[in-house]
C-alpha cells in the first residue's frame, strides 16, 4: 500500500519534470524558466550532499568549496587538456571526493559548530587557492569554455553537440534534471540501506555507535566523500552553462545557501533539500517584483517559516512525529 503510493509519487514526479515542464514552458513561452529550473536542479544536487553530512550529524557549510573545485577541474581539463565535457563530469566528482577524503580525515573528528566553522573557512581557502594556483589563470578566471560536445558510444550519438542544438537551454535542463533524479535516487538508496542505518546511529550517538563496533571514522569519511562528489558534479555543470569560471563563482554565500536549502526543506526527509532549494531559489526570483523590498520580504518569510515550522516544511507531513 505504502510502497504503491511511493511508486506513484515518483512516477508523477518524473512525468512532471521530464514531460510536463517542457510542455508547459513551450505552451507559455516562458523560456527563461529553463535556466531557473536548471539552477534549482543543480543546486539541489549540491544540497543533497550537504543533507547527507547532516545525516551523520555534521553541519556542512563548505559545499561551495567542492562546487568550485569541480568547476575548475572540468574547466581546466576542457581548456588545457582537450577533454570532452562528458569525460570531465565524472572526473570532477571523483576528484572532489578524493580531495574531500584528505580534508575530511582530520576535520571530521570535529563536531557541532567547530565542524561547521571549519567548513566555512574551507570555502574561503578554496577561493584563495583558485586565485593563487598556476593553472587556474588566477584572478582572470577561465573564459570562453566550449559548450558540451557530442557524446557517442560505438559511433552511435547518445547526446548531440550542444553547440549545434536549436535549444541548448532545454538540453541543459534535461541534463541537470537527469543528474538530480540520479542523485536523489542514490541518496534514497543510501538512506534505506545498512549504510543509512549506521549513519543514523552516528547522528544519534557517536560514542555508542563506536562502542558497538561501528567503524565511525570510515563511515564519516565515506558520507563526506559522497557529499563532495555531488558538490563537484553540480559545479562542473554550472561551468558548462556559464562557459566561464572565476574564483568567485562559488563563494561563502553559496555554501551558506546550500545549508539553508536543507534546513528549509527539512533535515528528516530525503526530498527535503530539493524542496528547500526550489522554494528559496524560486521565491527570491518571484520577489524581484518587490524591488528594493525584495530582501526584506524574503528574510521576513524565512524568519516566519522558522517560527511556524522550525523542523522544515516537510515536517507538515511527518505523521510519525519522530522524523528520520
Amino acid at each position, binding site marked *: 500500500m505504502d510502497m504503491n503510493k511511493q511508486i506513484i509519487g515518483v512516477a508523477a514526479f518524473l512525468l512532471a519534470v521530464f514531460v510536463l515542464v517542457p510542455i508547459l514552458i513551450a505552451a507559455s513561452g*516562458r*523560456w*527563461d524558466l*529553463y*535556466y*531557473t529550473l536548471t*539552477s534549482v536542479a543543480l543546486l539541489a544536487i549540491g544540497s543533497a550532499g550537504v543533507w547527507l553530512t547532516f545525516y551523520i550529524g555534521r553541519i556542512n557549510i563548505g559545499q561551495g568549496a567542492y562546487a568550485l573545485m569541480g568547476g575548475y577541474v572540468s574547466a581546466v581539463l576542457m581548456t588545457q587538456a582537450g577533454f570532452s565535457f562528458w569525460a570531465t563530469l565524472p572526473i570532477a566528482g571523483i576528484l572532489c571526493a578524493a580531495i574531500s577524503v584528505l580534508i575530511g580525515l582530520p576535520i571530521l573528528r570535529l563536531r557541532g559548530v567547530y565542524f561547521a566553522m571549519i567548513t566555512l573557512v574551507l570555502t574561503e581557502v578554496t577561493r*584563495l587557492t583558485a*586565485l593563487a594556483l598556476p593553472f587556474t589563470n*588566477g*584572478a*582572470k*578566471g577561465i*573564459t*570562453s569554455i566550449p*559548450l558540451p560536445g557530442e557524446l557517442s558510444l560505438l559511433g552511435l550519438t547518445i547526446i548531440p553537440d550542444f553547440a549545434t542544438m536549436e535549444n*541548448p537551454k532545454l538540453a541543459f535542463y534535461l541534463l541537470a534534471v537527469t543528474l538530480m533524479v540520479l542523485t536523489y535516487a542514490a541518496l534514497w538508496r543510501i538512506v534505506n540501506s545498512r549504510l543509512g542505518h549506521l549513519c543514523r546511529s552516528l547522528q544519534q550517538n557517536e560514542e555508542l555507535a563506536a562502542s558497538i563496533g561501528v567503524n565511525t571514522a570510515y563511515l564519516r569519511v565515506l558520507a563526506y566523500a559522497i557529499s563532495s562528489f555531488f558538490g563537484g558534479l553540480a559545479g562542473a555543470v*554550472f561551468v558548462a*552553462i*556559464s*562557459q*566561464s569560471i*572565476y*574564483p*568567485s*563563482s562559488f*563563494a561563502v*554565500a*553559496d555554501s551558506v545557501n546550500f545549508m539553508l536549502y536543507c534546513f528549509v526543506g527539512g533535515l528528516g526527509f530525503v526530498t527535503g533539500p530539493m524542496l528547500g532549494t526550489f522554494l528559496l531559489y524560486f521565491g527570491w*526570483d518571484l520577489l*524581484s517584483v518587490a*524591488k*528594493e523590498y*525584495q*530582501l526584506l520580504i524574503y528574510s521576513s518569510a524565512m524568519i516566519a517559516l522558522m517560527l511556524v515550522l522550525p523542523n522544515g516544511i516537510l515536517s507538515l507531513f511527518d505523521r510519525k512525529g519522530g522524523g528520520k
Partner: protein
Amino acid sequence: MLRRSFLRTTALAAVASIAMLGAAHAENPILKIGFVGVTSGPAAAWGTSNQRSMETRAAWINETGGYDIGGTKYDIEIVSFDDQKDPKRAIAGMEQMAQAGIHYVVGPNVDDGAAAVRPVAEQNDIMYFPYAFPKELYTAPASNAILGMVANYQSGPAIYKYLMENNGVKKVAFVAGNESDPLSQRDSGAAAARELGLEVVSDSVTYQMDTTDFTPVLLPVIQTAPDLLVLSGVSPANAPQLIRSARELGYTGLISTETAQNAAVLAEGAGELANGFISVGGASTPDLASDMMKEFVTRYTAMFGEYNDESNTKVYALEYILATMAANPAAIEDIDAFKATMDTFEAPNPFMVGDAKLKYVGSSSFGQKRQVSVPLVVNVYKDGAFETLFVAQVD
C-alpha cells in the same frame, strides 16, 4: 513574434492617436531597457548608481514627452534585476531580459558576471554594457558587449605618464584586494607602469576585502619607499581607510587609483589626509558639465535624496543606446543594425559643453569599436571636493 507585432501595432496606434489628438504622451509606446547588476550587499553602491541614473533619465524623458526614434516618441521603461554580485544569478537576470524581449541591457558590474552572461546574451541577441574590464569580452569573436566606461588599462597609463612628467614620479607600488577585479587591474597597471619605464617596487601585497585595519597591510609597502602608491581597483569603502593608514604611517608620496571615488565618503573617512588623492572621476567636471548634466544631477538628487559622482559616467550607457537607435531606428529590434551603426555613429554629447561627440571607440584596445566614449576625467581630492587634474580622451 506575436509580441513584436503587438508592439508595432501599439506603436502605429500611438502615432495615429497623437496625430489625431495633437499630443498625449501617455499614449507613447514603451521601449524597455534592461539593467542586470548588483544593488544589494557589499558592492551595492556600484549597481545602485547605474540603476538610479537610468531611472532618473527615463523619468525625465517620459515627463518631457518621450524619446524620438524615427519619428515615434517612446516612453522608456527600465527593467532591473539584482544579481547580488553572483554570476549564477546574473545569468538568470539576463534570461529574464531575453524573456521580456529586451535587446539592450546595462551591466553587469563585475568581471565574473560579465563573462557568465555572455552565452545568454549572444544566444538571445542582447547587446550589453558591462562595467568590467576583461579584454576578451570586447575583442572578436565577441561582439555583443560594449564597455560602459574607461578601462583601467587606459586610464592608468595616462595617469602614470602625467605624474612622471609633472611630479617626477620614478618608483611606483601597487596594492590590491584579493578578488578578481582588483587583482586583474593591478596586473595590467603594473605592466603598463613598467612599459612606461617606471620602477615597480612592490606589486605583491594584497588584502582581504573585509579588512578593518590597513596599517599591517601597508607597512611593507610603505617600507619600499615609492613615489606613487596605486590602490588598484579599490572600492569606495576601502579607499579612505587605505589613504588614512598610509598617511598615518608617514607616507608622503602620491596616492592614486583608477576607479571612481566619492568625495563625501573620503571626507568622512579620511578627512584632510585624503588631500592630494588622485582618482578617476565620474565623466564630468563643473567646467565640462552642460546645463543638461546639471539638470540631471538636480533631478537625480530630488528623486533619490543624494547624488553619486559615479553617476556622471553611468548616465551615458542609456544615452548611447537611445541615440544609436535614433540614428538607425531598425536597431530597436535588430542588434545587427545596431552593430553596423556603431562603426560610424556620431551625435552631439548632451552632457558636455562645447562640441563634444557621442561615439564608439576602443579600436586600439579591442580591435573593434566596443566602448562608449566618455571623457577620462582625472580628479584630485581637496578639502571635501574633487578638482580636475586633467581631462583626456580614449581612442
